[in-house]
């Protein structure tokens, strides 16, 4: 009798182990879609790395120059776009001058999308960011880390023209800026190479710029050693980092909105890991017997 139950359990688990992966896919899909329609508020704990970014931003006086480096493309936008929007909103609200550039060809386009969405925002409707007063977009430049190295000597020579084709020297935001020593803060949004690692190696290690970064969660673990060594002051990793930034800076957006789906998804993955292991050990235990 006992044996019969064992056989039944073993059969069940073996069946479970060979479960069609499409069932797993379906679970994931449901876990992500359903929360979009729910409205549950969650408490978001702030990690010290994100607080560092906030502290750096808060120290900036009105009129300070902030360089936003957009080093990502549309596939990584769900994680990085909310960070870009939150930081930009903070800058515009506190009258910090924003300089946009990209080492990825699609980066400056993502910046334009972020600005478009800010202009549509109720909070900025009466006081939309104005080109060359509140921000400039220097566009994309080929050369990867060598662009950063060039900027360390002369930004205006590295980017002779902005995104729209105006000479950089004619822009009022760029007045008096020669290199990183005239930039008060750099925020790098990065999804890979070239990105935060290169900014650390060149802008920070060689030219002593002050740098914080927002990274995709995939890349964040590799960047942690730089936070710990002080080469990087502050790091926001993935959607959670975006939600934390939104909370600290006071602009709730997609980062916070997506957190619920994120929670559900993690629970589904953890659930599958546990089930998979239970099934594995149950069937293996039987074999040993």
């Amino acid at each position, binding site marked *: 009798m006992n044996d019969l139950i064992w056989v039944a359990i073993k059969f069940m688990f073996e069946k479970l182990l060979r479960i069609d992966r499409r069932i797993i896919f379906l679970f994931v899909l449901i876990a992500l879609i359903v929360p979009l329609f729910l409205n549950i508020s969650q408490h978001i704990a702030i990690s010290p790395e994100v607080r560092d970014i906030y502290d750096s931003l808060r120290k900036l006086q009105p*009129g300070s120059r902030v360089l936003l480096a957009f080093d990502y493309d549309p596939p990584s936008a769900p994680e990085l776009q909310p960070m870009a929007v939150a930081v930009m909103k903070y800058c515009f609200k506190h009258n910090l001058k924003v300089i946009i550039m990209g080492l990825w060809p699609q980066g400056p386009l993502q910046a334009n999308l972020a600005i478009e969405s800010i202009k549509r925002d109720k909070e900025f409707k009466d006081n939309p960011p104005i080109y060359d007063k509140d921000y400039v977009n220097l566009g994309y430049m080929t050369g990867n880390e060598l662009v950063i190295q060039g900027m360390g000597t002369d930004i205006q020579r590295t980017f002779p023209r902005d995104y729209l084709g105006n000479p950089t020297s004619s822009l009022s935001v760029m007045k008096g800026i020669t290199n990183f*020593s*005239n930039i008060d803060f750099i925020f790098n949004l990065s999804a890979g190479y070239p990105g935060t690692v290169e900014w650390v190696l060149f802008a920070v290690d060689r030219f002593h710029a002050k740098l914080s970064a927002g990274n995709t969660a995939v890349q964040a673990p590799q960047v942690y050693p730089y936070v710990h060594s002080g080469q990087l002051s502050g790091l926001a990793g993935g959607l959670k980092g975006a939600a934390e930034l939104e909370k600290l800076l006071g602009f709730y957006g997609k980062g916070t909105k997506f957190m619920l789906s994120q929670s559900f998804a993690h629970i589904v993955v953890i659930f599958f890991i546990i089930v998979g292991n239970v099934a594995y050990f149950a069937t293996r235990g039987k074999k040993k017997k």
Partner: protein
Amino acid sequence: MYPTKKALLETSKFIFLLLSFLVLMNVSAFCAVPEDPSYGAPAPPTDLVVRDVPNDAGGAIILHWDPSVDDVEGNDKFIGYEILRSTSPDSGFKVIGTATAGSTELTDNQTVDGKKYYYIVRSLMGSSIAEAWPVGPVSSSQQWFNLGRINSFIALLILSTAILWYIHRARRGDTLFIRKIAGLEAVDEAVGRATEMGKAIYYIPGTQDMDNVQTIAGVTILGRVAKLTAQYETPLDVPVSRSLVMITAREIVKEAYLNAGRPDAYNDSMVHYLTDDQFGYAAAIDGMVVREKPATIFYMGAFYAESLILAETGNSVGAIQIAGTAMPAQLPFFIAACDYTLIGEELFAASAYLSKEPKLLGSLKGQDFGKLCILGIIIIGSIIQTFGIFDFTSIFTVQ
């Protein structure tokens, strides 16, 4: 209704402020004497030091000053600093740059080497300014050696010497011991299994170009795998995502087949280009794997996000998978979904172990020597730091 005492007080305070402001404006226009900071002109920055930027290619002078006493957190009126430059100590000063409140440094990189310059830094608060005395002369120059990098220079010299010495020893025929690497032992077995099953072997050399050292290591290991497939007459398929990799991989596979005495079994279509795009490449391989169900798949080289798509699909068709990469973010997936994984440096060690080539063995030993030095430095250094004998870390500052 008549004004309250408080309102009167406020009004008189305002008038007093206004008057003193006007007076101070006039005074400061004539001489930049620091006045009461809360009401008028700011204090100028002090102790301006100017010097040539060290260890550079010239054309730059660095300025450093102590902040004005008004440059404190919370003082919103303090705007920042303006930097002026002239070639004469008395006249001709022009603004060349600004620095925001809180900064104490600026690099002027618009200088002509050898020309003498004088600098003034002044504080801006509200609409008033205060200048410090001009400082100079100073001129920029280019240097013949970057002294800030002397530590890297020495370390690299020692490391390179060690590598070359070990290579020399290996070539002389000395036996150099290298421990077993589990993932590599499995290569022969994996090729053997594909032969038994009569199915193909896929070899994916990563998605990066030939300029990536990992790709080079991957292509080196391909040489070994190709030699085995030539001997066993197992079909080999190498889809690549870079034209340069295609060229190199063809050379290497061709040579392997030649050395195995089977040049007839080689043809160029074994190594073929798909697309440069990461996901286009992954999608194409995905399709190939699902349709052809290879027996063995190798992933050796630099991978990004496509690693998981590839490894999971390979796993789902039941292929033996052997992976090797030095991309930390991709390693968990290979460890999870592949039968054997070469972790980080093991990929580089693998090409040495497989080929038993003196140059590879020697350099692996050289790297080990480097690791031994680093281990020693960390242990001794941490003890020194613990007892606070001196700042040991300053030796390793990078510039």
